[in-house]
């Protein structure tokens, strides 16, 4: 086999290991935060939904952010979907996948719960947990506790559903043959769009261009390694498999060290992604979001890369998630829920523990987590019986 073909297979068609995905994800989110801002998902989705509700006349005020190409929140989501699509298409994995009917109902219910949960936690599993932990904010691990209990309840629900509602009859509209062609067009398009941002008259053209291509990198890495935080949190309770969970723990500590350096040196404000959700917002929001994402089969980021792969269920999840999140946050704004501190306090851990102490605490938590899921991989003590 020629070296060219081998390189294509390794880079574009084979699945990367979760561990490689987790390490590269940590690298990219640190780069993104160094470039301009923390990684996020739900802000961009909510912005699109805000514009939708404004356009149909439900909201009186025009949303503060531009809907598409000149707000970073929006660009991060577009970039993630774009990068994941390149990966899916180059790997011949893009196809429109229509699920059985019951999955449509689950998608709507799950999307609503994810929208509510991400409002309470002021972020999905990305902004509220992964990026909160590595931005050294106390609400991150609190959301994790909520997520875990939500995931456990959802596994019980899925077992129950399997007994009562056996489903079949889904299908795929396959684009197997033209997939690599679509992937190359998307890749060239991405490079042109990035170059256009850097040469544009927009206020923050370069910033936006950097965000686009870094987010596309995140999308590519997540799709190729099928990096999935639902899988990481669910499998220890469903099959005992700990591979994704271990990758997530490594990704968390690596990105936390990177972002701690950025904050310590004053490159980014210490308050970035420290939200006033400690304890109740993160805990309750995490629980509701955890249940929703497990029924959906994708968290904030995982739903978007599956959208790019052509999973119709996750398209519905993403839309309902965005609309619900917009409505609930609109309601919060009316009653000043966040400003009044009803969701909790903003706690930047280094203020209490110092930077070294905070990193040690994060290292300790992920180490214990790693050991528990590794032990469970052999003993299956945490696995819920079917």
């Amino acid at each position, binding site marked *: 086999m020629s070296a060219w073909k081998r390189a294509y297979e*390794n880079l574009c068609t*084979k*699945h*990367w*290991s979760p561990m490689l995905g987790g390490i590269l994800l940590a690298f990219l989110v640190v780069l993104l935060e160094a470039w301009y801002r923390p990684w996020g998902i739900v802000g961009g989705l909510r912005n699109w939904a805000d514009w939708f509700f404004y356009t149909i006349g439900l909201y009186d005020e025009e949303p503060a952010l531009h809907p598409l190409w000149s707000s970073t929140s929006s660009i991060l989501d577009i970039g993630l979907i774009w990068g994941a699509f390149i990966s*899916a298409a180059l*790997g011949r*994995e893009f*196809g429109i*996948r*229509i*699920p*059985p009917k019951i*999955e449509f109902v689950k998608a709507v219910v799950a999307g609503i719960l994810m929208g509510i949960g991400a409002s309470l936690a002021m972020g999905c599993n990305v902004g509220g947990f992964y990026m909160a932990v590595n931005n050294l904010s106390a609400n991150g691990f609190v959301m994790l506790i909520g997520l875990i209990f939500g995931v456990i309840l959802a596994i019980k629900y*899925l*077992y129950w559903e*399997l007994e009562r509602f056996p*489903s*079949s*009859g*889904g*299908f*795929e*509209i*396959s684009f197997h043959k033209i997939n690599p062609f679509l992937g190359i067009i998307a890749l060239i398009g991405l490079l042109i769009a990035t170059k256009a941002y850097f040469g544009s008259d927009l206020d923050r053209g370069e910033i936006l261009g950097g965000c686009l291509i870094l987010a596309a990198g995140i999308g590519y890495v997540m799709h190729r390694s*099928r990096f*999935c935080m*639902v*899988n990481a949190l*669910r499998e220890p309770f*469903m*099959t*005992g*498999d700990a*591979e994704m969970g271990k990758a997530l723990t490594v990704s968390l500590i690596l990105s936390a060290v990177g972002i701690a350096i950025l904050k310590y040196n004053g490159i980014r404000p210490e308050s970035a992604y420290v939200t006033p959700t400690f304890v109740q917002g993160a805990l309750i929001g995490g629980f509701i979001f955890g249940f929703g994402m*497990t029924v959906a*089969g*994708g968290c904030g980021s995982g739903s978007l890369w*599956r959208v790019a*792969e052509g*999973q*119709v*269920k*996750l398209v519905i999840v993403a839309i309902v998630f965005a609309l619900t999140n917009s409505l609930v946050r609109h309601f919060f704004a009316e009653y000043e829920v966040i400003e009044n501190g009803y969701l909790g306090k903003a706690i930047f851990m280094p203020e209490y523990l110092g930077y070294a102490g905070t990193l040690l605490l994060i290292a300790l938590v992920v180490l214990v987590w790693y050991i528990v899921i590794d032990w469970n*991989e052999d003993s299956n003590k945490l696995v819920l019986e*079917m």
Partner: protein
Amino acid sequence: MSDIKIAPDDIKPDMTIDCKGLSCPMPLLKTKKAIQKLQPGQILEVLGTDPGSRNDIPGWCERAGHEYLGEKQDQGFIRFYVKKGA
């Protein structure tokens, strides 16, 4: 980085389940449930469209003590074969 295992041509499944159009974790859950109904040595065929199953099904077989026999590409879906372990 995993290589794809191709199933031998002459496989005769004892049971087939339809997971087409489903996404993670449903194909694996249905597989897990279906295999409970088989005897050791019998073969389960899983029809699916989720690329994630290429990781999930072989990985789960190894953990649960079943033998993963491989996959066959069909028109618009993949057939996965699992032989129930003792």
